[in-house]
Every structure is written in C-alpha cells, then in structure tokens.
C-alpha cells in the first residue's frame, strides 16, 4: 500500500506559521516553532514559502540510518514514526533525511518527525489558506528535486530544499509570463 502523506500546495502557503503553532501546541502543549514537526521556510527572494515536513518516503533513508532501530514504519497508513523511548538523539536520522524534516530541538533528547497525528494532522485544519491537506501520497511534494547532498547542517539543508521548490515555482511563473 502507498504510504499516506500531507499534500503541500506551495503556492498557497503565506508563511503565517499557523501549522507550526498547531503542531507544537498539540504535540507539546505550548507554542514553539522550534518544536514543530513542520517547518515553513521563507524564500524571500522569490516570494515563495515552503513547508518542510516528513513526506513518508517509500524508501525512507532515516529508517536504516538509526542505530537504535527507533524509526519504524508500522502504522495502518504506512507512515514512518520515531519511537521516542528508543531514540538516543544521536542525530543520524537528521543527517539522513534528504529534506531536513527531522530535527532535535535544543534541550530535548529525542528527534522529532511528523507522524500525521495518527491520521488527523492538527496542522491541516489550522491552515486557512489551503496549503495543507492530507489526501496525498508519499514522495509527492519534493520528488522532482535533486536531493540535497549530505553533510549539510539542518538550516542549510532546509534552505536548499526550499530553494529548489521555489526555483521550480519561479520557473513556472517565468513560462506563464
């Protein structure tokens, strides 16, 4: 079965960060984008905003990267999740994820990744602009992109992923114009 995933309509995202607030509130009980499993990167130069979130890759590189076998694909939706009790916060998955969708917030000893809230993601109803829905399939969002090379720090990796999406949208606009 195809793994489920959030569907991302990049052109509709306005960078209001409501998804980050919903995510951190529902998962942690407070408002803190640093603890959100979804991260919106603003590509100011091109006026494009790119939500970065786990898209549940068919071949998920985070799973074999984990020395503690804390990352599993075990839900009915075919999604990937981190078993917090097994995670040692070693950071291998952060490096392995080609999109920058996994992170370890400061002061926390566990890696964070979207688990689709078990099928009803809190971020989807929080998005008033129609940028997020949960009808999608794995890999769809970032698939046509060149994967960012490994060894980048997380902000830079996210930036490169967002930049590639923005450039693709930008090119489409050039063609239109």
């Amino acid at each position: 079965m195809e793994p489920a995933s959030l569907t991302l309509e990049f052109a509709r995202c306005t960078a209001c960060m409501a998804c980050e607030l919903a995510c951190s509130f529902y998962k942690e009980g407070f408002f803190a984008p640093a603890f959100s499993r979804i991260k919106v990167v603003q590509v100011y130069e091109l006026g494009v905003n790119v939500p970065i979130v786990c898209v549940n890759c068919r071949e998920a590189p985070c799973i074999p990267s984990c020395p503690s076998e804390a990352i599993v694909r075990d839900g009915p939706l075919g999604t990937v999740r981190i078993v917090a009790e097994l995670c040692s916060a070693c950071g291998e998955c952060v490096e392995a994820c080609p999109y920058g969708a996994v992170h370890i917030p400061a002061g926390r000893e566990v890696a964070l990744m979207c688990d689709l809230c078990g099928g009803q993601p809190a971020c989807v109803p929080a998005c008033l602009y129609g940028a997020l829905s949960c009808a999608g399939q794995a890999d769809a969002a970032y698939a046509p992109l060149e994967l960012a090379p490994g060894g980048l720090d997380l902000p830079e990796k996210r930036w490169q992923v967002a930049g590639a999406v923005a450039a693709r949208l930008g090119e489409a606009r050039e063609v239109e114009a």
Partner: protein
Amino acid sequence: MIRPIAPQRILNVDLTRGETWAEVVPQEEIVKHLGGRGIAAKLLYQRVPGGIDPLGPENALIIGTGALTGTNAPSSGRTSMLCKSPATGLYLKVSVGGHLGAELRFAGWDHVVITGRSSEPAYLWIRDDQVEIRPAGPLWGQGTRAVDARLKEELGDRAVQTAIIGPAGENRVLFSAILCSRYNGASRGGIGAVMGSKNLKAIAVRGEGGLRVAQGEPFYRLADHMRHELAKDPGTESLYDWGTAGSIPGLNEMGMLAARNFSQVTLEGAELLSGQHLQEHEYLIGRESCFSCSTACHRFVRSLDHRWGKVLDSGPELETVLALGSECGIVDTESALVANRLCNELGMDTISAGHVISWAMETFERGLIDAVVTDGLELRFGSPQVVHEALERIAYRRGDFANLLAQGTRRAAAAVGQDSHRWAIEAKGLEQSAVDTRMAKAYALAFAVNPRGPDHLMTETFAEFGLSKEAREVIRKITGDEKYADPHLTDKRAEIVRWHEDVYGASEALGFCVFTSTAAFAVNPENMAQLMSYALGTPFDEEQLMLGGRRMVTVERCFNVREGARRTDDRLPWRMMNERVPAGPNQGMITDQPMLDGLLDQYYGMHGWDSATAIPRAETLESLGLLELCGDAAA
C-alpha cells in the same frame, strides 16, 4: 526556554557602554498596561526625559511585542516600536508586522530597550539568552535587502529575523524607516533616523524557546474560532484577494482618493494602482502573512515590462500607491512597484516621502521654486522618473534641495516660505496619510489628537461610515444608536474616537493587527479580554482591557505635554481645514477650525483633560492609577 505569558522580560541594551542586561515586568504591570505598546509607552515615559535631542544618545528605541504574540491568536504578530520622534519632537509609536516580534518572544524577550550610541557601526545579535553587540562596518551604507542577506549568511541561519535601516536611516532622513522581516516597514516619524543616530545598522533575532498559556485548551479553541470567523469576513476576503490597495476603485468612486497633493479627490486611471489591477494583470505572484495571520494582505509582485526597472519584491500598500502614485499625479503600475522597492531598499516611509515630493511638485508648479533651486529636478506632477530620482537623492541627502526635503514637509515649507505651508499636508511635523478627513468627522478628530501626527495608524474610526452590520453595531454599542454611524455628523464623535483609541491601543498591546478589531470586528474587546484571561490564568474582563487602552492613550498624551505640546498642536493640515472638498459626492465639505474646536472640547472633556490646554488633570491621572508615573505632566 518555555515561558509563561507573564511575567515578561525586558532586554536592556546600552550601546554607549556596550552592556546588556535583563529585567522583569511582573504580572500586575501586564494587567495594568497590557503589554506591547502599553508597556513600551510606560518605559518610554520613564526612560526618556523631557526635552532631549531625539537624535542624541538619551533617546530610547523601544521594541514592544504583543502580550499574545507567538500564540495562535489571529493576526497577533504585530510589534510596536517607540521613541521620541525626530520629525515631531513628540511621542512616536510605529507598529510593524512580519515575524520579528514572535521571534523575539521565542528568544525569551518581550521588550527591548536600546539607549546610548555605539562608537562604531554595530548590529545587535539576539540568539535566545546570548546577546551580542557586533561590528557592522561592512554593512554600513548598504541597502536593506543586501544587509538582510549578508546577516543571514554571516549568522548561518536563514530563519533569522531582522530589523534593518537603509542609507536613509544612516543619513538621518527625518522620515526614514526600519525594515523588519524584509517586507515590513516600521516607517513613520523618522524612527529609522533614531536607530541610525545610535550607529545601529541592524537587529538580528533567532529564538528556539516557546510560550505556554495558562489555560491551553480553551485558549487554543477560542483563538481558532476567532481565526475562522475572521477569515469569513468580507473585508478580510478583499484584503486577501487584492491587498490594501483593493480599496482604490471604491475610494475613487466615492470622491475620497487623495490626488495631486490633496488638491483632487478623484484621478482618472487610478485603477492602474489598484490591487485588482495587480491581480488581473499578474503583477501579483504571491501573498504573504505576518506571523499567525489569517488574512495575508501583503503582496509579492513582479514588474512586467520593466519600464522603470525590474522588480521581484514585496508589493506596495494602499498608502504607498497613493502617496507615490496619485498624490504625485502618477497612474503607472510599474512606477508604483519601483518607487515602493526604492523606499524599502533605502529605508524610507513611503507616506512621508510621497507627500514631501507632492508638496515640492505643487510648489514647483506654482512657480515658488524652479529647476535651479531643485538642482535640476523638474518637479511636475505625473513624472515617474523624477519621483524615483528624488527618492534616491533624499536618502543620500544629495544636493541642497534633496537635503531640505529630507527634513520633511514642515521644515521644507518653512524654508521656502510664502504661502507654501498652505499645501504642506502635515500637522505636528508629520505628513498626513492619504486619508481625506474633511467629510469624516471622527476621522478628523482622531487625526487632530493623534499624539504622533495626522494619520490613521494610532486610531481609526472606520465604523463611523457604517458600511457593515458589524460596524453599525459597534456604533450602537458606543453611542446607543445606529443613527450615529454617519461620518458627516459631529455629535458623539468624541465617544466614537475614544472607544476606538482604547480598542486600537489594547489591540496593539496584545499584538493584534487593527484590521481585525477596527475594520473587521471578529477580534473584539470581549474575546480579546477572554484570551488574556486564559493566557494569564486569572480573571480579566473587557473593562480592564479598555482601561489598559485608556492608560496607554493618557501616558502618550502626558509624554507630549512634558514636551510642551498643548491644545493648539491638535490641529489638521491647513488645506484640510481651509479648502473645501473640490468635487464628487462630498463636494463642499470641510472640517474647519470652529468645527474642530467643538470636537476637541467634547473630546478633552470626556477624557478629563483641561479644555484650554489639553493637559490631563491630576484627578484623571489618579483615577487611572497613573499619578505616580505621569504626575509631573498633570494640569
């Protein structure tokens, strides 16, 4: 660090000594002054003594984040920036959107108070509790976009939020701005010059903490409900579709479109400046939100034929296309995009820049100045290239004439003399925003008593037009009768202004965009107070909220009293009080001095201020619990 909403934390920065230190604001102060603009106004009153040079080290640049900024409350990401204005010599509050305020709060800071002057160009780097004053030598002289990019590179994180001055702020242009989160201008009253006078080029912020409200579930649910209500409002939909410039066709039709330095109220072809035109012709390529906003009125645009230069940048607001477009007699979409980009890049207020140029155009066309005086600028209405050239010259103070315009309209008119003050669209030394106050009496009163000068950005009495059911209900709530939802009436205007002042102040103290509370009304005193109650975990009602707004307005008045401002300073530009609306449905209307005097008597009386001087009475201050803070200014 995950913090509660109260107490709050102040970051103090003394640039002269190169020292920074933290300070706590206890919960009872937040209940009293609310946060944001409220706490910042109190700090400004306490820390900036009367009579100091606004461009000297004694002035303070204060950043106040909203008490609910950083939460999911709708459109709650706005930040107040305060100082003593170098344009007016009076109180200045500027409100800015974007993401700066939220980032500051996540970094663990609710307010920043910057005093002194760095000996060398510097920037402030706030990364959670680590605060550094860093050298900014190579950044000095550069435009705001380039500095934003370089800071993000130097700091290794593109999520850093910035506040930056351009060449105009460095050169202390009296209407220079601070550009925040790249797209958002904190622009009025010369706040950029104050930052420039401190040798402070930029502030960069990154925060990885968060905020915990006392009663999480009810807070989240109510805020979410308000967000959805707001999104359904027709005004909000229009702002999303077309931005603030979506009102151009309506203004033109109603004969309320400021054109050619307020000598006309309609302009042929003005629809070329509208948000509808930007959308239909695909100049518009993206919409941007401020933090936690459910409206997304900001535009991202491109030029199409690049007639005046290539643009791929944030789009112009309504006031920008009026000031730099219709007021200069220019109906040219491409020119508006370029002029907007220039102001953002150079760091200048588009409202004042447009109006000082439109004043110069009228002065030139009337023959009071010629091309010798203007260093070769043919300042005629309808000349895009002249506007673009003038903007550059002003920012760099290039040539004597541009140097004069950099002082603002009041000083320029004083220098040119003759009758040129009659078409200087300013009061208190601030250029009026492109809003005609002649046919709307609460607007006229609100503009006259505005502590920073005549504009719609301290109080806006939109409801007096009664354009929606909600607006008419607001008027009934204030006055007891919907019939007062009529902008031509003078009755009940003081009540209407005061209610809006309180709501506007409270909105800004909590971080709300005033579009949500005084244009749309989905954010109202009742639900704002309820959110505060859930956030603080203590009972907090509408009356306390409104009282917080009232205190703010009173502290602001006291600041100006201490600077010597009196009733005679509460005036409108000469043209607004002496020349009748020349055409259209409002032809012949005027708010003249006798009418304004009547409105002012009502207003001061209602506030408990002395009518002859406009100074708050001691008993008024006492009843607001402000005698200790502001007693030195009492009548």
